[in-house]
């Protein structure tokens, strides 16, 4: 148990963060708070993915050193560099997240124009 805590605490922290956002998305009555929850949830997913690319102590960012000198594939030590793929995926996911945030806020503005409030309880009263 202690060993697994040591090996996985990193994932668990992000899962905890995710669940904070997930709960806020469902339980909060204010629409903006829901959107904030959505943002926390997605950010936690991104951190989770990024943390999977870590390769122990020796590895650094995946930018090849001495790249402009002759650099044969055989001499390259892949243990020096972290895994680039999660970074790439999350660059895309960040953009998707921002876009979702934008559309959600636009819809929130529409709701505010129509009901004059962003509180779910009050909206249900004014319908």
């Amino acid at each position, binding site marked *: 148990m202690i060993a697994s805590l040591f090996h996985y605490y990193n994932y668990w922290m992000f899962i905890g963060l995710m669940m904070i956002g*997930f709960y806020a998305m469902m339980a909060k009555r204010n629409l903006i708070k829901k959107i904030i929850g959505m943002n926390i*949830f997605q950010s936690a*997913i991104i951190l*989770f993915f990024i943390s999977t690319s870590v390769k122990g102590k020796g590895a650094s960012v995946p930018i090849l050193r001495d790249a402009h000198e002759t650099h044969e594939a055989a001499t390259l030590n892949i243990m020096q560099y972290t895994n680039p793929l999660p970074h790439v*995926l999350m660059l*895309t996911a960040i953009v998707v997240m921002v876009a979702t945030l934008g*559309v*959600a806020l636009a*819809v929130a503005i529409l709701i505010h124009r129509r009901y004059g409030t962003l509180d779910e309880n009050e909206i249900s009263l004014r*319908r």
Partner: protein
Amino acid sequence: MPAENAVLIIVIPLISAFLVPLIGRWKRHFSYFCTIGALATVSLISTSTLLKTIKEGNIGYHMGGWAPPFGIELAIDPLNAMMLVLVSVISLLVAVYSYRSVDQELSDRMVYFYTLYLLQVTGFAGILITGDLFNLYVFLEIASLSGYALIAVGENGAPLACFRYIIMGTIGASFYLLGVGYIYMVTGSLNMADVHQLLPALYDSKVIAAALAFILTGLGIKMALFPLHIWLPDAYTKAPSASSALIAPLMTKISLYVMIRVLFYVFDISILENLFPISRMMVWAGFAAICGGAIMAMAQTDFKRMLCYILVAEVGYIVGGLGLANAVAFKGAILHMVNDAMMTAGLFTVAGIIMYKIRHRDLSDFKGLFQTMPLTMCAFVACALSIIGIPPTCGFFSKWYLIQGGILAMQWPFVGALIASSLINVFLFFRIMEMGYSFRPSHKRPMAINTTETGINEAPMSMVIPTLGIAASVILMGLYNQVIVNRIIAFAVPMG
């Protein structure tokens, strides 16, 4: 035809989506013709792709020339080629139909409507065509975001319904992404075919169980599987007629397609079956969806809302059919996926026409419509008979396969629910037809605009002809169901 043409199925709607706002600034209604042109081209290309896959086998196209596990692959087999044809044809017909309705409901924002319409089709096509799990997520989000916008511009109350959909939909998409991340953690790959080869050694891993649970839950939200359907009725009822006619039939079917792709082509359901009773869970989920959808449909007085609950029940047919896990039911489920997209598209277009003419769509507004709008009601009857499952419409044949499969698998509750929900559909639609025939049209509503002496007051031809086209294809797909099953779906069946 070279394999490169397959990529045009995504590229053409994408580029037209960039062009439409520019053309629209010059002449507003040119955006409509541009959309029609793009979708017609896509329909032709996807049809020829389907013929090619049937004749020559699967197509794999490497984007950017990078071989699959490293680059992104477009993988086309008869199953997704057929879905591409379905999506492009329905979106073309709905686009033709949409002009007058959009002109009435959103006249000042038509250009942006058609831009998002094309982006929606791009998203659908991308989901269908891609062979990469993460790329699928990106296109799922394109489809979802444009869908949110198309829904939120609807009538009063649409933004709130759409906001709930955004929250649920984001949870769904994020769950899918988490599932893909878990798969990536233990396989190191994102390509579907590659993951399929790597997975068999890993099935007893907890990671894979969690990944599958998250992917299926996420897709369950997107496809409105019964307890997760709560966002659907509000969102699709309040959306503009043209958007609901595009999104309601297709979004659920696309998510179902992704589920089939993940369960049968990425995972291997026969191995999963040994670990936990996934098929039985799917049958029961389908059973719950059929019962819930059918019962809720009976309680509705709003025609579009009733259709939404019928849609929930239809998702149950397909999920349950997949869970029956025999070849007959699998064929039935896929055939029903295609048929259901067509017939719900028909019914939603009819709802849009009635909305356009009468500005109301309660069931009581159908009074006397057979007299005033005979062509529309003709299309309505064809689609309604198909939902009920009466030959020779296509709904009969897919239900027949599903019931046969249910009997083979001895899943009596599921068979019972199928038959019971067909009876409920009989009740629902015959009630509307009776109203349409036997009552005089009510003139309380502002509908008598230019009634001719015969009392015929049909909607504009640009709306009626596509609707009749959908109704005709409902009947044709019924008559030629053997061709569809033997030539296309038979290739997609994973179990013997």
